[in-house]
C-alpha cells in the first residue's frame, strides 16, 4: 500500500452547505445517470438498492412548532484514514487490493473487475457509502445506448461506490495535456452532483489549493488532518479519525451535533473549547 505516487498532491474534496440543501434529490439522479448506476425493478427496499449519493433526512426531534428538518447528502467520504495516511477504513481491509487510495488526488478508487465481492469494505465503512451489486444490471430496452462510455458498468457480485466522478478529472486532464497545460482549472473538474444541485449547496475542488472555494469555505487545518477551522463546518464522525474529504456546513447547532456521536454533556464542552479556540 505504500505507493510512491505522492507527487504534486491534490486533495479533492467536497463542501456541502446543509442550510442550502432542499432535499430535492437532483444530486442523486445526476449521479446515477452520470455513473451508469443500475436500478432494480422494485426500488422499494432501500437497503439493497444502489445510490452512490444518498440524501438522508435528519430531524431535531422536537415537536411542532420547534421541529426542524435537515437533508444531508452523503457521497463516498474518500477518507484519508487515521493520520490521513491513506489507510481508509475500506482500503486497508480489501483482501484483493480492489480499492486503493490515490495519494496524488486523495481519491479512493474501486476497481470492479478486481473486486470479488467479499463485502469486507462495506462492513468497514461507517457511512454506508459502499454498495453491493446483488443483481446483474438490467436496463430497459434501448437505454443501454444512453450509458456513459466513460464509466464501466458493473457486474453482479461486486462492490461499487462514488468515485468523485473521476472520469471527469481524466477528461479534464486530457484537454490540459493537449493544450500543454500542467494544471486543471477548478471549474474544469466538477462532479455531476455539484453541477446538478439547483441551490448550489455543493462545492467541489482541491482542498490543498487556497484559491479553491472548498478550501476557503472550511479552511482545513493541515496539522490536524484537514479538520475544518471554520466553526460552522464539520465532518461526519470526526471522532473515528476516518478523516473524510467531504465537509458539511450548517448554521444550526443541532445539525452540527448530529454529525458525530457525543456522550451526555460532551457536546457542550466541545462547543466551549471550539469557540475558545477560535477567539
Amino acid at each position: 500500500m505504500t505507493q510512491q505516487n505522492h507527487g504534486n498532491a491534490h486533495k479533492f474534496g467536497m463542501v456541502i452547505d446543509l442550510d442550502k440543501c432542499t432535499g430535492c434529490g437532483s444530486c442523486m439522479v445526476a449521479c446515477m445517470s452520470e455513473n451508469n448506476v443500475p436500478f432494480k425493478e422494485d426500488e422499494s427496499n432501500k437497503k439493497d438498492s444502489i445510490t452512490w449519493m444518498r440524501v438522508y433526512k435528519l430531524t431535531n426531534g422536537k415537536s411542532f412548532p420547534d421541529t426542524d428538518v435537515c437533508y444531508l447528502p452523503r457521497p463516498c467520504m474518500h477518507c484519508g484514514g487515521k493520520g490521513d495516511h491513506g489507510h481508509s477504513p475500506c482500503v486497508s481491509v480489501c483482501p484483493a487490493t480492489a480499492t486503493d487510495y490515490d495519494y496524488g488526488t486523495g481519491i479512493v478508487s474501486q476497481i470492479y473487475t478486481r473486486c470479488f465481492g467479499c463485502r469486507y469494505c462495506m462492513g468497514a465503512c461507517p457511512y454506508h457509502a459502499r454498495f453491493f451489486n446483488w443483481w446483474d444490471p438490467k436496463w430497459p430496452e434501448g437505454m443501454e445506448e444512453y450509458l456513459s462510455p466513460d464509466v464501466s458498468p458493473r457486474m453482479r457480485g461486486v462492490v461499487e461506490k462514488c468515485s468523485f466522478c473521476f472520469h471527469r478529472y481524466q477528461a479534464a486532464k486530457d484537454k490540459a495535456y493537449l493544450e500543454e497545460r500542467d494544471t486543471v482549472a477548478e471549474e474544469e473538474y466538477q462532479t455531476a452532483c455539484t453541477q446538478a444541485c439547483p441551490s448550489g449547496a455543493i462545492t467541489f475542488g482541491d482542498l490543498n489549493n487556497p484559491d479553491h472555494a472548498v478550501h476557503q469555505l472550511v479552511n482545513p487545518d493541515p496539522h490536524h488532518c484537514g479538520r475544518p477551522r471554520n466553526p460552522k463546518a464539520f465532518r461526519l464522525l470526526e471522532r473515528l479519525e476516518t478523516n473524510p474529504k467531504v465537509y458539511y456546513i450548517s448554521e444550526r447547532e443541532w445539525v452540527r451535533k448530529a454529525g458525530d456521536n457525543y456522550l451526555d454533556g460532551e457536546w457542550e464542552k466541545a462547543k466551549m473549547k471550539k469557540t475558545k479556540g477560535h477567539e
Partner: protein
Amino acid sequence: MDSALIPKGANRCPFPVFATGIAVVGVVLLWGVYAMGLCWIKGLNQTNMNDYYGFALWIWADLAVIAIGGGAFFTGLLKYVLGIDELKNIINLAVVIGFICYSSALLILAIDIGQPLRGWFIFWHANVHSMLTEVAFCLSLYFSVLTIEFIPLILENRQVDKVPFFHNLSHNMHTAMAVFAATGAFLSCFHQGSLGGVAGVLYGRPFAFREGLLIWPWTFFLFTWSAAAYGPCFTLLVAKMVEGITRKKLIKDNVIHLLAKISGWMITTYIVAKIIDTIYWIAVTAPSLGFSVMDFYTDNAFYGIWILFAEIVLGGIVPAVILITKKYRENSKMLLLAIILGVLGVCLNRWVMVLQVMAVPVMSFDTWALYIPSWQEVATTILPVAYGIILLALAYRYLPMFPQEKELSTEK
C-alpha cells in the same frame, strides 16, 4: 454386507440401518446443495443480506465452526508437541471434527463471495495488510495440515492397512506428526486470530473496534485463546453425542476429564481476559468515540444487554467454574451442561462479533438494522452440518477412531 471394512472386533449397527440414517441426512445435504447451487447460479440476491448486512449468517457460521473446530489444533498441540499422551484416545475425533469444520468453512467462503470465479484473487492479488487475506492463506494452509493429519487415520482402515505401502505411510506419518501438528498450531494461532482481527480492526465501527498490540487488535488474541479454550468443549460434546447415539462408551472418563479440565482452565483465563477487554472497551474505547455502552444494546428489538450477560456469564464464567471444579467436572450431567454452555457461548461471541457489529448504527441519524436470513441462507448453513454428520458417521463406522473402544466394550 460391509463387515470387511469395519474395524476388527468393533460392533457396528447393521448396514441397512446405517444406510437409512445416511440417506435421511443425505436429503438434508441435498437441500443444502440445491440452495448452494441457487446462490452460485442466481447470485447473492438469493439471500436476505443487504448493504447494511454485508456480513451475515454465513460469516457467523464460518467463524463459529472454526472456533469450535479449534479443538483439533489445540488437542494436537497438547498431544504431539506438549506430549500429553492420554489425549491419543481422543485426538482422532478432534482431527476429524477439525477437518469437517475447516472444509465447511472454506465451502462457506466460496459461496459467500459475490464473484466465486474470482476467489483466487485473494491469493494472487493479495493485500497482505487485510485480515481477510491472512484468514484465507492460513485457512487453506491449515486445511492442508488437517488433511495430512486425517490421512493416517484413513489408512488405518482394515482393508487399506493391509497394503504394505499404506501401512508404512500411516506409520511414517505418525512419526512426523509432531512437525505437522506444530505447523498446524502455528497456522491456527494466526488464522483464529486474524478472524478476530477482521472485526477488531474496523475503526469505523466502534462496536467492534479494539486497540491492540502492533497491528493486532485485542480481539486477535481473544479469538485464538477462545478457540483453544472452547474447541475441546465441542470435541467433548461430539464425543458425548457419538456415545449417546451408539449407546457405547468409547473414551475412558479420565481422558474426558483431563481434556475438560484443560478446557476449563483455558476458558477461565480467556474469560478473565475477555472481561478486562470488555471493561476497557466500555470505559475507554467506546466513550472516546462518543458512545456509551448502552448505545450498543438499546433502541432495537433484539440486541439487549442480555446478550453480553449470556456470552460472558452463561457461556464463560459458568462453564469455567464447572470445568475447573473436580466435583462438578466428574458429574456427567454437570459436565454436559458445561460443554453445551461453552459451545453456545463461543458461538454467541462470534455472532456478536459479526452480526451485532453490522446492526449497530454508527452515524447519529442512522437506525439499527436487523435482518432475517432467507431459507437459502439457512439451508447452506445447515449443509455443512449434514455433511459433517455423514463424514463423522462414515469415519466412526469404518475407521478405528476410538482406540479405547475395544477395551471398553470387553470390560462391559
